[in-house]
C-alpha cells in the first residue's frame, strides 16, 4: 500500500466542506485536547480558528519547546542544475523559460559545497530540476560519496526516483529526501504542470513511499501555498505526514509549505495567503503532529522568519542561493524563486541566539552510514 491508496479514499470536496463548517466551539475543544484527532486538526485550519491564533501559538510554542528544545537546525540547498523538462507555471526553471541553463560538474558542485562548509553548514540539500540526463544516478552517487566526507547529512530535493535508485544513493551516504507534491488538488495539479514527467500526479505522490521503503532516514513533503485552497491542501499535507509517520516509523518526517514567490515567467499566486494564515498552518500542524519537523524557507522576509521561529519551526535554511553555482559567483540570477531572506548563516545564527535558540549545524553523523 502507498499513500495513493489512502488518497483515493479521500474526498477533497467533503474535507473542504467539513473544515469550512467548523465553528469556535470546535476550535476551542481541539485546542484543549492533549491528543487531537484529524477532525480536530481540520478545526485548527478552519476560518473559525483565525480568532484563536494567539492560543494556538502559545500551545504550539510549548509543544515544540518540550519536544525539540531551544534549538533550530540549519541547512542549505546546493542547486546542482536548473535544467528541467517540466513546465510548471510557477517555477523559474520551467522548460519554456528562456534562461541560461547550468548543470554543475562534480568539481563545480564541490566548490559550491566548500563555501557552504566554510559557513559552518553540515547539512546539505542537493537540488535540481527534472534533469535525469544530466543529473544522473552515477553523478548523484559520486557527488554524495564525495560530500559525505565533509557533511554530516546529505539529502535530495530532485526529480522523483525509483526505490532502487534511492537505495543506491543512500548507500553512497544520502540520508534524506524532500519532495513537494506542490498541491494535492488533482485538477489544479494538471493545470499548473503542463509538460514533462511531473504531470504524473500519482508517481510523485508515491515518492516518499519509495524513499521510505529504501530506508531513507528523513522524508520531507510539502505544498506550495498559493496554488489551490491552502486550507484544504494543508488538510491533505497533514494526512500524508501522519500516514508516513506511521508507516515509515524509523524515518523522521518533515513538512514545508512555502508561499509562492515571484519567479522568472511572471507567475502570480492563484490565491492569497496572509502572514496570519501562515502562522495558523504552522501552529495547527505543530499542535496536531507534535513530533513533525517543520521547515521554514528563505522565501519569507527576515522579520517574519524571526517571528515565526518560536511557533513550531524546527529547521531553517540559511544563506540560500537558488541558482546553480550561486555560492561561488555570489549571484542569484536564473534562480528557481526569489529569496527574501538573504542573511548569511552567521547572521541567522546571531538572530537565533538573540531569540534564545541554539543554532544547530550538525544533528546527524556520517558514521551512521557505512
Amino acid at each position: 500500500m502507498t499513500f495513493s491508496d489512502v488518497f483515493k479514499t479521500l474526498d477533497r470536496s467533503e474535507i473542504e466542506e467539513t473544515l469550512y463548517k467548523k465553528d469556535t466551539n470546535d476550535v476551542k475543544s481541539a485546542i484543549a485536547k492533549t491528543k487531537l484527532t484529524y477532525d480536530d486538526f481540520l478545526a485548527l485550519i478552519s476560518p473559525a480558528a483565525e480568532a484563536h491564533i494567539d492560543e494556538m501559538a502559545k500551545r504550539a510554542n510549548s509543544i515544540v519547546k518540550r519536544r525539540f528544545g531551544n534549538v533550530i537546525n540549519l541547512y542549505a540547498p546546493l542547486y546542482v542544475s536548473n535544467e528541467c523538462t517540466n513546465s510548471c507555471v510557477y517555477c523559474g526553471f520551467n522548460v519554456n523559460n528562456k534562461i541560461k541553463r547550468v548543470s554543475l560538474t562534480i568539481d563545480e558542485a564541490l566548490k559550491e559545497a566548500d563555501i557552504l562548509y566554510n559557513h559552518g553548514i553540515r547539512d546539505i540539500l542537493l537540488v535540481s530540476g527534472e534533469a535525469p540526463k544530466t543529473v544522473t544516478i552515477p553523478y548523484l552517487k559520486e557527488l554524495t560519496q564525495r560530500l559525505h566526507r565533509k557533511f554530516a547529512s546529505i539529502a535530495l530535493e530532485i526529480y522523483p526516483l525509483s526505490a532502487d535508485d534511492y537505495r543506491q544513493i543512500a548507500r553512497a551516504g544520502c540520508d534524506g529526501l524532500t519532495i513537494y507534491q506542490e498541491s494535492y488538488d488533482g485538477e489544479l495539479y494538471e493545470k499548473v504542470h503542463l509538460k514533462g514527467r511531473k504531470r504524473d500526479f500519482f508517481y510523485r505522490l508515491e515518492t516518499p513511499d519509495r524513499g521510505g521503503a529504501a530506508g531513507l532516514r528523513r522524508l520531507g513533503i510539502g505544498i506550495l501555498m498559493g496554488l489551490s485552497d491552502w486550507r484544504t491542501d494543508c488538510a491533505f499535507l497533514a494526512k500524508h505526514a501522519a500516514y508516513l509517520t506511521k508507516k515509515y516509523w524509523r524515518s523522521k518526517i518533515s513538512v514545508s509549505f512555502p508561499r509562492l514567490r515571484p519567479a522568472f515567467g511572471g507567475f502570480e499566486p492563484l490565491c492569497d495567503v496572509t502572514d496570519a494564515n501562515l502562522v495558523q498552518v504552522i501552529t495547527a500542524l505543530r499542535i496536531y503532529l507534535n513530533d513533525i519537523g517543520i521547515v521554514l524557507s528563505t522565501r519569507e522576509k527576515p522579520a517574519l522568519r524571526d517571528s515565526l521561529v518560536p511557533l513550531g519551526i524546527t529547521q531553517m535554511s540559511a544563506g540560500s542561493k537558488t541558482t546553480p553555482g550561486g555560492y561561488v559567483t555570489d549571484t542569484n540570477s536564473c534562480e528557481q524563486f526569489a529569496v527574501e531572506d538573504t542573511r548569511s548563516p552567521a547572521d541567522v545564527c546571531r538572530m537565533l541566539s538573540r531569540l534564545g535558540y541554539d543554532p544547530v549545524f550538525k544533528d546527524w553523523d556520517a558514521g551512521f552510514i557505512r
Partner: protein
Amino acid sequence: MTAKQQSDDNIIINGREFSSRLFVGTGKFSSVQSMVGAIKASGAEIVTVALRRVDIDNPVDDIISALGGLDILILPNTSGARNADEAVRLARLARAAGCEPWIKLEVTPDPNYLLPDPIETLKAAKILVKDGFTVMPYINADPILAKRLQDAGVHTVMPLGSPIGSNQGLRTKDSIRIIIEQAEVPVVVDAGLGAASHAAQAMELGADAVLVNTAIAVSKNPAMMAHSFMLGTIAGREAFLAGIPSKRETAEASSPLTGFLRE
C-alpha cells in the same frame, strides 16, 4: 581526589567512583553558555553528549570545547542509531577520536518517542562489552532485559521513567522497583523526569542515580532547575539510606494505644 569524592556514598561504575548521583544531558539548551551554567549548578560528574550533535574530530567544536574545561566524564551517546551496527560503529568512531571508552548505548529506531529497541540494544551491548567499552544501555523498564544485559556484562542499566522529554516522571515505577531489586550493577533512571521531586522519588526507590536533560534544558532558568535536581537527587538518596518508613492503610498513633499494657 576531591573532598566530595572522598565521601563514602559514591556511585561506582566499572571501578570508577563518582560522588554525584545526578547525570545530565546536553541537548535542547538555548546556548552553550546556558548548558555549561546548568552543568556546573547540577554538580554532575557524568555528562552525556549525542555523538550526532558534535564534531568529535574537531577540538574546536563548541560543545566539546565548552565541556573540556569542566571536571566531568564526557559520556558519548549513540542517540539516533537505529540498529546495533550503527550504534557500534558510532561508539568505535568516538573512541578512535580520543573519547574514553565509555558509551551510553541508545538504539532508538523511532525518531519521535525515541523508545529503545531491546533486541538491537542487547546485540550492540554484547559487541561493545567484548570490545572493552564501559557500556551503559538506555532501556525500557524491562526487568528481564535488564538481567539479560547484566549477563552480557554491561556496567549499568538505564531504564526510562517515561518517554524521553515527556516530563511525566516515574510512570514505570513498578518495573523499576523490580530492576533495582534484581540489579547487580548500578541502576540509573534515565528519561522522563520532569521535576526535582521525580528525581527524589527515583532515588527513594533505591535507584543509584538519575539522568536528566529536557526538564533542565527547556526550563526558564536551566541553572536553577539543575540545582533543584541536584537537591532532589540528594534528598531522595538520603531518604533511601535513612530507611523510608513503610506506608500503612490506617493511621498509627505515635504513642501506641496498647501502651498501658506495658505500664
